[in-house]
């Protein structure tokens, strides 16, 4: 789960990391009131989960009440790469002497935590990594050992920040590491991390991705409530289904993430375009199948549906009965092509055969089913 900047800063503040004081505002009046309370100058910042907000005019400095009003009016409702700004973060402006970059994430290949620190902050770190890889000081941290002060200090020295920043950076990085580990983040990134003329180090931005698997041991209800999903994804989420909306017109239902991805692949490979990825999990009972069909059915772009089930533990006849029961419960607008394989596939196909029609076709292999569904969708 990705956090908005203001949530990331609240998350950081919870671990004692220095951030600029600020307030959230959803209306122009609230934004102006917040700015007046904080004292000028302030920065008016669009809260959207997309990069390049500054360039799109979504981050502006206001020296007084009139400017705060002007910027808030401009930014609220602004469309930044398809994300419409509904919320602002009004922050007390900081004097900046230098800008750095810092982050913690998991290095899957090394199976260790990776810390990255650079004296070149405020820009895309990918660009720095490409053009001047030596400008990023990297450390790999054993999760069992953690980040000790001595290691953090050596790392900070290697990154060649302004020596004035060293003490503050060591302290902040250790707190950031704690936020990353204890806070169950997949990513904790600060860009820029700033040094003020007074020699203080603090986080001017916050990019945080939380590990959904750890939600049971945190109170993330507020973060969860503000997640932006499209309608289809929200409906699937409410039913506990793994769903990703895509741009095509063939609805996909499969059991298992790998098989679902594979199904999207094969639809695209035979000349169609998948409308979604939908994983109903290892089994395939009637209730889950009915829920999945409802989600797909409510997607107006879908012209035909491909159900791809491999019965392992769940036997073919149980899967087939599940599909038939689900079809009895949900009125489906689009024709369905089913590929059922695996344990007792023959029995399952026999059950489906009894219900076969123009709008319910069964095919024995993935490839044949994919071709059939794309052909049917093409005629509609």
């Amino acid at each position, binding site marked *: 789960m990705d956090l908005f900047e203001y949530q990331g800063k609240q998350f950081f503040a919870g671990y004692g990391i220095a951030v600029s004081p600020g307030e959230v505002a959803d209306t122009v009046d609230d934004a102006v009131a917040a700015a007046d309370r904080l004292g000028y100058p302030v920065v008016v910042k669009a809260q959207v989960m997309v990069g390049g907000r500054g360039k799109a005019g979504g981050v502006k400095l206001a020296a007084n009440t009139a400017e705060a009003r002007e910027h808030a009016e401009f930014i609220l409702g602004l469309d930044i790469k398809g994300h419409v700004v509904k919320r602002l973060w009004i922050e007390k402006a900081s004097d900046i002497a230098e800008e750095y970059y810092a982050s913690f994430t998991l290095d899957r*290949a090394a199976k260790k935590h990776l810390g990255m620190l650079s004296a070149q902050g405020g820009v895309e770190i990918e660009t720095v990594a490409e053009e001047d890889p030596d400008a990023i000081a990297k450390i790999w941290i054993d999760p069992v050992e953690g980040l000790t002060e001595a290691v953090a200090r050596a790392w900070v020295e290697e990154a060649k920040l302004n020596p004035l920043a060293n003490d503050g950076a060591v302290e902040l990085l250790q707190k950031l590491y704690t936020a990353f580990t204890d806070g169950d983040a997949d990513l904790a990134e600060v860009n820029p991390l700033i040094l003020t003329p007074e020699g203080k180090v603090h986080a001017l931005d916050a990019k945080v991705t939380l590990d959904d698997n750890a939600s049971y041991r945190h109170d993330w209800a507020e973060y969860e409530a503000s997640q932006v999903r499209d309608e289809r994804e929200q409906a699937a989420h409410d039913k506990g289904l793994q769903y*990703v909306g895509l741009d095509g017109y063939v609805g996909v239902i499969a059991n298992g993430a790998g098989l679902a991805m594979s199904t999207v692949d094969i639809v695209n490979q035979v000349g169609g375009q998948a409308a979604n*990825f939908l*994983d109903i999990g290892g089994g395939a009972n009637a209730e889950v199948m009915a829920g999945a069909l409802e989600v797909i059915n409510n997607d107006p772009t879908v012209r035909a549906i491909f159900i791809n089930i491999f019965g*392992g533990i769940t036997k073919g006849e149980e899967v087939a009965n599940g599909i038939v029961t689900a079809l009895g419960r949900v009125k489906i607008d689009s024709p369905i092509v089913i590929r059922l394989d695996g344990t007792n596939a023959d029995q399952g196909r026999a059950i489906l055969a009894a219900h076969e029609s123009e709008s319910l076709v069964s095919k024995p292999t993935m490839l044949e089913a994919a071709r059939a569904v794309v052909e049917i969708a093409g005629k509609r």
Partner: protein
Amino acid sequence: MSIFVDETTKVVYQGLTGSQGKFYGLRNRDYGTQVVAGTNPKKAGTDVEGIPVFANVGEAVAATGANASCIFIPAPGVKDAVLDAVNGGVEFIVVITEGVPAQDEAWFFNKVKRDNPNVRILGPNCPGIISPGKANIGITAGEIALAPQPGKPSVGIVSRSGTLTYQALYELKLQGIGVTTCVGIGGDPVPGTSFIDCLEAFEADPETRAVMMIGEIGGSAEEEAAEFIANKMSKPVSSYIAGVTAPAGKKMGHAGAIVSGGKGTAAAKMEALQAAGVKVGNNPTEAGELMVEIVKGLA
């Protein structure tokens, strides 16, 4: 031969008394796996259809000689369950549970690696391991796997994805190709056992003549495997990577399956594997057909 587990492996099921643990523990026993014990501190001294339940893995090992464990404990308890297994003295730990926090995985992987380097973890979030005809530990349906056939070459399977693992087993069975061992390594960020661990074991196993490897978008495990295949493997490999047409930045179900910034794409993985001499199919069926060709060449 098989890798990692065979008919002599004695398994303790952590969470045997839960609904999932009981269902699969008994299924695995029916398959022929030596399911010797279960654990549950609150139900020590009882049994599940004749399988004795102990308070912890150490007691189960002392009483039954178990040398492997299979974990069906809910995600919040997995970290402690892994430590219980390690401290109890088993050397192979299969973690079926999905939804384990990444920080826990990273922590117990490194903890076990440092303090008990002889212990192998498989998973979390994996279907388990099956050496057809010998042992089945986990949730794979045993009947879709064909044991090695006398006089015919057998192959090994290693996969990051559950249902595609079953698909692979099944396609090979339909073709009459026996499997020495099929390892589902799982799609989580910190898998205890990697592609390379399995490829290395298959390379060393004389009965395994070729390997089928099923990968997924995201991460760089397939690229690392390609390097290993190019430099260290003499046996032929066929492969399929799921998510060829997945759009960038979309997370598709598995924690592992995300493409970002052009890295971890299926195209990059397929290219790396092809460069290493691997026969790469565009879908699971094609990868199966490629394996049939490979096996014909071996016979």
